[in-house]
């Protein structure tokens, strides 16, 4: 089912990415290309086959409940466009 431009705009808005009309048109083409490519998988008959969620190791590996990380404020904030002391500073969000 190909995406229309309204859906492309909606996806962009949900991700808070601003796009122009030109970009919406271009992205629509790209996204439909990707979806169509993946869509080829539906040609395979998987009747009665259990979904596969990964290859190799079959189940999630668990770790022990120990504090092994943290106390690296500067590293955590290193990519922040803006910081205020030990905090990330972001445009004011008020509900």
């Amino acid at each position, binding site marked *: 089912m190909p995406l229309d431009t309204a859906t492309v705009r909606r996806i962009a808005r949900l991700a808070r990415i601003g796009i122009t009309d030109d970009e919406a048109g271009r992205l629509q083409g790209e996204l439909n290309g990707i979806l169509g490519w993946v869509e080829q998988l539906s040609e395979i008959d998987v009747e009665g086959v259990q979904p596969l969620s990964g290859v190799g190791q079959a189940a999630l590996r668990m770790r022990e*409940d120990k*504090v092994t*990380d943290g*106390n690296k404020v500067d590293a*955590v904030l290193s990519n922040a466009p803006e910081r*205020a002391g030990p905090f990330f*500073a972001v445009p004011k969000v*008020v509900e």
Partner: protein
Amino acid sequence: MSYEIERATGSWELVIGLEVHAQVISESKLFSGASASYGGEPNSHVSLVDAAFPGMLPVINRECVAQAVRTGLGLDARVNLESRFDRKNYFYADLPAGYQISQFTHPVIGAGKVEIELADGSRREIGVTRLHLEQDAGKSLHDQSPDSSHIDLNRAGVGLMEIVSEPDMRSPEEAGAYLRKLRTILRYLGTCDGNMEEGSMRADVNVSVRKAGEPFRTRCEIKNVNSIRFVMQAIEVEARRQVAIWESGSAVDQETRLFDPQRGETRALRSKEDAHDYRYFPDPDLLPLVLEREWVDRLRAELPELPDAKRRRLAEEYGIPDYDASVLVAEKPVAAFFETVAKGRDARLASNWMLGDLFAALNRTGRGIENSPVSAESLGGLLDLIADGTINGRIAKDVFEEMVETGDGAGVIVERKGLRQVTDSGAIDAAIEQVLGAHGDKLAEFRAGKDKLFGFFVGQVMKATGGKGNPALVNAALKARLAS
């Protein structure tokens, strides 16, 4: 107990379901090794996984899974030996990855139940739909600066259990009872501290109204209510709002709302347009969570005695009323306190003293049972002095108050203040003669047939002994004297 809203068109029934977010008690976070403890310098309990740096991979904490399984077992729920994690996508400044790792289609815990008890003593079962594990978000501070919001990610990635109930509750009281009971169970299990003020337990409340016998009507969700009292108030005002809308001929819109306790109203929270468009999909970073049956069985074998079982045992083993037992088990340390006091003593007396004088003293001093001004051993000591006749019940009240104030043992206080019960018949007889001598007029009235003055004489004699007379001896001696 039925709770309905009466209007011109008939009575409206409430339909309530609760989603409780309970913070898992663990050392580290659900998918990272950063500390899960409350507080800390801003952004100090944060790993690069929590801050969603590119390429960082989540690794699940076994203890968080164990806590979820324990909670499921405590809710008499099905444990799913295979479950999965999904990404719940939404954009918000305190959610660095742009998605929350949660469990949507395959939660770790399936259907269970919670038994609630209402004020009239009746019990009802409330269904639990599911429990799943997910990450908490960070915290946004809006009041630190005029033109920016500040983000602290210390909470981001801490393990939460979302416990979803069936829409089985029909009144604010039932919702309150459900939350209290759930909190009691979580605390018994040690899986969540249940502290709503600090936000380690929060509730989203789903409310709709309908006429009797109807299918469900549109519901609204009231987000993030942080006390049991507010949950009950929010349900009440939201139900009234919806009834008013239906009664006016309009329809309720499905939306997310916020409860404002100051104004006592709910109001629409976020724009409805994109609400609930979370675009869930399986998290490709995480394989299925597969539990071994033996591990689950071991966790089950290690579960502590739960509140319902404890209530039944206390009532049976100690012969106390069911109501007393249910009050005593509401907090685990209270039940333990009771058992220490009651062992080898009159358990009903122990329960009465705890529910009466001790609880009153805790209220008055603003203390919890853990730092009670009178220890279980001390209260037991006081009951021993009543049992062996050293003091009477009346004096015991005074001794108890003195114990609360000074922290001294009952025996010490009785000796210090000379409160030993007077059982010496000579002393009691002397007090009787003194009272009869002082109240010749009353004695004459009594002799003339005014029988009920007997109580007056008992009171006066007790007063003359400073309240220390043995009531049974005083009664007997007085009876004998007046009959002569």
